[in-house]
């Protein structure tokens, strides 16, 4: 394994109810890089993230994180590895019965014996980093979607993880929030010296901030490269995805029977 790789996936296969979801995936995530995994909804991106986090075990293949095979760990070892990770869920997944402050302080209280004064300073610093120090007394229900995502981001990086995973961080955001979140993802990755994996289908925002892109379709990697290579790619799938074309390798019509038959027309 390359010493500069934080996460390495080799020949990953995963099936759900005998239906193949991931097939022969090989990926490398070098330390300090921000890498996007893109593809259509249901192509296996989130399943891949769940494998890296140890929530799913592969049918075949290996996933290593920081030198440990994630799928071979018992629960205590897995939890020890997860302390080195952070994950931002699609809609933030803030704890709705806790204030913004308590959400960000949650991991600090659970995993450290730090006194409350130090926790307070750390929480304020994290919230300041995402521009929401003034919201510490609010409840999650009082935040907009973009603000909730930024608070969740502050909670994700609360213990300065080595690996930060983002599951659709741009979903449902207005253009300003989208730019803010994208910029924060890049800045936090560089400031913390972390490695980040962004699962998304927001091509334009992602290409502005990431170092490398993997494209997935139907559980396999169909293209990969730096953002400029992706923009210039002549591959049909990548071109359709990047330019948002209606028809191409991903058809407009869902497979079905004869149209004439469905309309009860005679031949």
């Amino acid at each position, binding site marked *: 394994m390359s010493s500069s790789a934080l996460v390495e996936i080799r020949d990953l296969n995963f099936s759900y109810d005998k239906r193949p979801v991931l097939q022969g995936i090989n990926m490398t995530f070098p330390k300090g890089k921000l890498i996007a995994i893109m593809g259509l909804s249901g192509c296996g991106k989130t399943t891949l993230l769940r494998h890296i986090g140890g929530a799913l075990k592969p049918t075949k293949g290996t996933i290593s994180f920081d030198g440990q095979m994630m799928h071979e760990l018992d629960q205590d070892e897995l939890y020890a590895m997860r302390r080195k*990770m952070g994950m931002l869920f699609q809609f933030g*997944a803030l704890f709705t019965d806790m204030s913004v402050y308590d959400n960000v302080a949650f991991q600090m209280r659970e995993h450290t014996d730090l006194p409350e004064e130090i926790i307070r300073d750390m929480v304020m610093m994290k919230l300041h980093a995402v521009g929401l120090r003034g919201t510490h007394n609010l409840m999650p229900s009082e935040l907009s979607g973009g603000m909730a995502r930024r608070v969740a981001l502050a909670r994700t990086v609360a213990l300065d993880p080595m690996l930060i995973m983002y599951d659709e961080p741009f979903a449902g955001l207005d253009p300003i929030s989208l730019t803010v979140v994208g910029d924060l993802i890049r800045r936090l990755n560089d400031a913390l010296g972390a490695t980040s994996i962004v699962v998304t289908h927001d091509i334009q925002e992602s290409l502005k901030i990431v170092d490398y892109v993997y494209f997935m379709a139907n559980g396999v990697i169909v293209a990969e490269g730096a953002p400029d290579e992706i923009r210039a790619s002549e591959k049909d799938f990548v071109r359709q995805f990047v330019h948002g074309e209606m028809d191409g390798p991903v058809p407009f019509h869902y497979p079905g029977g004869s149209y004439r038959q469905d309309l009860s027309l005679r031949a």
Partner: protein
Amino acid sequence: MPAIKTIKGIGHRAINAVWRIGMATRFFLLTLRYSGTGFRRFHLIIKELFSTGVMSLIIIVVAGLFVGMVLGLQGYETLKRYGSESALGVMVALGLVRELGPVVAALLFASRAGSAMTAEIGLMKATEQISAMEMMAVNPIARIVAPRFWAGVISMPLLAALFSAVGVFGGYFVGVVQIGVDEGSFWSQMQAAVDFREDIMNGVIKSLVFGTVVTVIALFEGFDAPPTAEGVSGATTRTVVTSSLAILMLDFILTAMMFGGS
């Protein structure tokens, strides 16, 4: 063939039911295993005691009062036929302490606190809060389930005791204040006939069992709920239905064990 299809359907349901009982038992054992964390941070249990116990007080007190009043009225009408009105206090107290207190309080607890627990945990699952907790290396059984479980087990006997106490007062109000049964015989016969170990402790044991079963069902259903609106609503319904049936079935078994042969 329709017959084969029916048999297949019955078999599928039976297997599913056994599977769920097994999963719920495993869930219960895991809850006990991770309860230490909850006790080390007792403030989590206190917080849950408030939402399960304190928030159930009004429904328990109001229901207890009316059940006691009805018991006073019905008891008087029956006892009057045999000229035993003075035994009204005994009848009200034994009825409440042995049966109605634990059973009705548990049924109310299942529909108020149990359904709320299921809906809360089901929604936490649907909004990925439980997954987020797991990704933060925090065990959700220890952090979410165990404090709620112990809050349910602790609050159920207290609520049942309160139900019985208010019910006795309701019976007193109707029997003594409204109808005019002798106050002295109402209280003295009650005091003489109600045995602490035989009646009160058996009632407490019943409510402890009901509290455990209802809370485990509510928590398991929430944890096992499909993460959709329909899934959470179905789980909430199952909590109330399964808990109610379990309470009534267990009540018969416990009553037979406690009082059946005497």
